C-alpha cells in the first residue's frame, strides 16, 4: 500500500489540477453544449430539442448586430494594435534615450482593468464635458465628436479604448522578438549596403512571423471575449448598436432568462475561439517538439 502510494505520488499530486480542469472546463463546456440543444428557459431542461436554439440565434437581429460588431471591432483592433505596436517597437529599438520610461508609459494600460479603462474613456469621450467641449473652448466652435452617443459610430469608441489598452502589449512582444535577433545578421546586411528601412522591411519583419502569429491569436482572443470594456463604455448602446457576442450571452442568460439560447450563443463563441486556438497550439507544440 505504502509502496503504491510512493510510486503514484506524482500522479496523486497532479490529480487536483486535472480533476478541477476536467470538471470545471471540459465538463462545463459539455454541459453548456448539451443545454444548447434543449428548450431551457429560466431553468435548464434536459429534454433534447434539436438545433432550435441555433436557428433562433441566427434569426435574431440582435445577435446579427453583435456578430457584425465583433467583425468590425476585431478587424480594426487587430490592424491598429499591430501597426502601432510594430512602429513603437522598431522606433524604441533605435538606441533611444529614456527607453525605459517610454516603454513603461506604452504598457501601463495593460495593468488596468477594462472597467477602469472604460470609465476613463467614457468621461473623455462624453460630448457635453469631454474632448468635444475642450476643442470648442479652444475656439473650434463647430468641432463635433459625439461618437459615444451616435449609433453608427459608437462601436469605434470601443476600438479607440481597446487599442489604447492593448497596443503596448504588441509593442512588448515585437520588441522582445527584435531583441532576440542576433546582431550579426543586421551588421552583415548593413555592410552589404542595405538601408535601415530595408533591414527592417526585408529581413527583420519577415523573421518576426511567429510574433505576428502570436499577436494575432492573442488579440483575436481578447476581442472575441470583450465584455467588460463594452459594459463600462456603452452598455451595448445607444440602443443595441454596440452589442457584442459576450454581452449578448450574459444578457440573454441573466436578464432575459433564455438559458438555452444563451448556451447556443456561448457555444458559437467557443467554436470561434477554438478555430483560432487549436491551430495555434498545434503549431506551438510542433515547434517545441522540433527543438
Amino acid at each position, binding site marked *: 500500500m505504502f509502496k503504491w502510494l510512493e510510486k503514484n505520488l506524482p500522479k496523486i499530486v497532479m490529480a487536483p489540477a*486535472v480533476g478541477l*480542469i476536467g470538471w470545471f472546463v471540459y465538463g462545463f463546456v459539455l454541459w*453548456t453544449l448539451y443545454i444548447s440543444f434543449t428548450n431551457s428557459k429560466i431553468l435548464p431542461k434536459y429534454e433534447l430539442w434539436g438545433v432550435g436554439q441555433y436557428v433562433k440565434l441566427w434569426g435574431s437581429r440582435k445577435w446579427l448586430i453583435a456578430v457584425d460588431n465583433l467583425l468590425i471591432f476585431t478587424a480594426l483592433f487587430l490592424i491598429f494594435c499591430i501597426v502601432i505596436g510594430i512602429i513603437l517597437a522598431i522606433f524604441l529599438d533605435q538606441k533611444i534615450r529614456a527607453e525605459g520610461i517610454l516603454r513603461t508609459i506604452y504598457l501601463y494600460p495593460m495593468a488596468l482593468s477594462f472597467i477602469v479603462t472604460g470609465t*476613463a474613456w467614457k468621461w473623455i469621450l462624453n460630448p457635453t464635458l*469631454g474632448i468635444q467641449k475642450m476643442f470648442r473652448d479652444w475656439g473650434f466652435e463647430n468641432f463635433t465628436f459625439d461618437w459615444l452617443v451616435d449609433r453608427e459610430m459608437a462601436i469605434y469608441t470601443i476600438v479607440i479604448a481597446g487599442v489604447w489598452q492593448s497596443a503596448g502589449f504588441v509593442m*512588448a*512582444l515585437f520588441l522582445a522578438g527584435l531583441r532576440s535577433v542576433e546582431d550579426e545578421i543586421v551588421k552583415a546586411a548593413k555592410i552589404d549596403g542595405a538601408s535601415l528601412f530595408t533591414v527592417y522591411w526585408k529581413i527583420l519583419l519577415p523573421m518576426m512571423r*511567429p510574433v505576428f502569429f502570436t499577436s494575432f491569436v492573442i488579440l483575436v482572443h481578447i476581442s472575441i471575449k470583450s465584455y467588460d470594456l463594452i459594459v463600462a463604455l456603452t452598455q451595448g448602446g445607444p440602443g443595441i448598436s454596440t452589442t457584442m457576442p459576450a454581452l449578448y450571452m450574459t444578457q440573454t442568460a*441573466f436578464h432575459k432568462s433564455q438559458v438555452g439560447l444563451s448556451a447556443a450563443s456561448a457555444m458559437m463563441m467557443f467554436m470561434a475561439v477554438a478555430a483560432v486556438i487549436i491551430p495555434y497550439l498545434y503549431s506551438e507544440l510542433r515547434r517545441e517538439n522540433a527543438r
Partner: protein
Amino acid sequence: MQDSLKSSSYQQLEKKSKYTNMFLRWFLYFILILFASYFIFPLYVMVVTSLKTMEEIRQGTLLSWPSGLNLESWAVAWGGRGYGAGDTFLRPYFWNSIKMVVPAVFFSTFIGAMTGYVLTKWRFKGDQWVFLFLLFGCFIPFQAILLPMARTLGVLGISNSVVGLVLVHTVYGIPFTTLFFRNYYVSVPTELVKAARIDGAGFFKIFFKILLPISAPIIVVTVIWQFTQIWNDFLFGSTFSFGEAAPIQVALNNMVLSSTSVKEYNVDMASAIIAGIPTLIVYVLAGKYFIRGLTSGAVKG
C-alpha cells in the same frame, strides 16, 4: 590625388547623411512622444478631474489644471458621504477584493507549481497530452462555463460570496500557473533531480530542497499575473456576486452607472483610480516580471 578626391566626396556624403540622420532622429522622438502622450492622456485626465470640483469641471476643459489639491472626491469615493442607504463607496468592496485575491492567488500558484513540477521532473507516458489538456483551459471563452458555474455555486451554497469567487478564480487560474511553472522547470537540468533521487530523496524533498529555492523569479511572475487577472476581473465578479459581496471592479461599475442625482465625474475618476491603483503599483514596482508574465503567458515555450 585620387585619394584626396575620394575623401572629399566621401566627406560630403557623410555630411549629408549626418543631416538626414539628425532629421530622422528628431522624427523618431517626435513620433515616440506623440504616442506617449496618447497613452498618458487618459491617466492625466483622470488625475486632474479627480482633483477638481464639479464647478471647475463645468467651466474648464479636460486638460485644465485644478485650482488646488481638492481631495474631497477621493474621500467620497473611498468612504462615502455618510448617509445610509444609496450611499455607495469603495472601501468595503476594496476589502472584498483583497479577501478574494489573496487566497485565490495562493491556491492557484501552489497547485500550478506542483503540477508543473510533476509534468517536467516526474515525466510519464502521455504527459504531453495532460499538459495540452490543461493548457486549453487558458483559452476557453468563459461564457461557455458561466451557466453551469452559476448553478454549481448555488448547489454548493457559495453563490454571491467571496468564497465562491475564490473557488472560481483558483480553478480558472490553474492553466496559467501550470503553464508558467512548467515552462520554467523545463529548463532546470533533470540531472539534478536524478542525482537527488539516487541519493534517496523523495518527491517532496526534491521539490522543497532543489526546485523551490530557485523558483523565486517564476513565483513572482505567477503571483503578479494572477493578482492582476483576479483583481481586474469583472465577468466572474458581476455574474456570481452582487450587493455586498461584490469585488471592487463591479462596485466601480455600479457607482459610475448609478443614475441617481447629478453625475459627479470627479468622484467617478477618483473611484477609477482607487480601483486601478493596486495593479498600477505592482506594475511600476515589478514591471520586469509583469512583462515576463504577459509575454510568456502569450508566447509559450
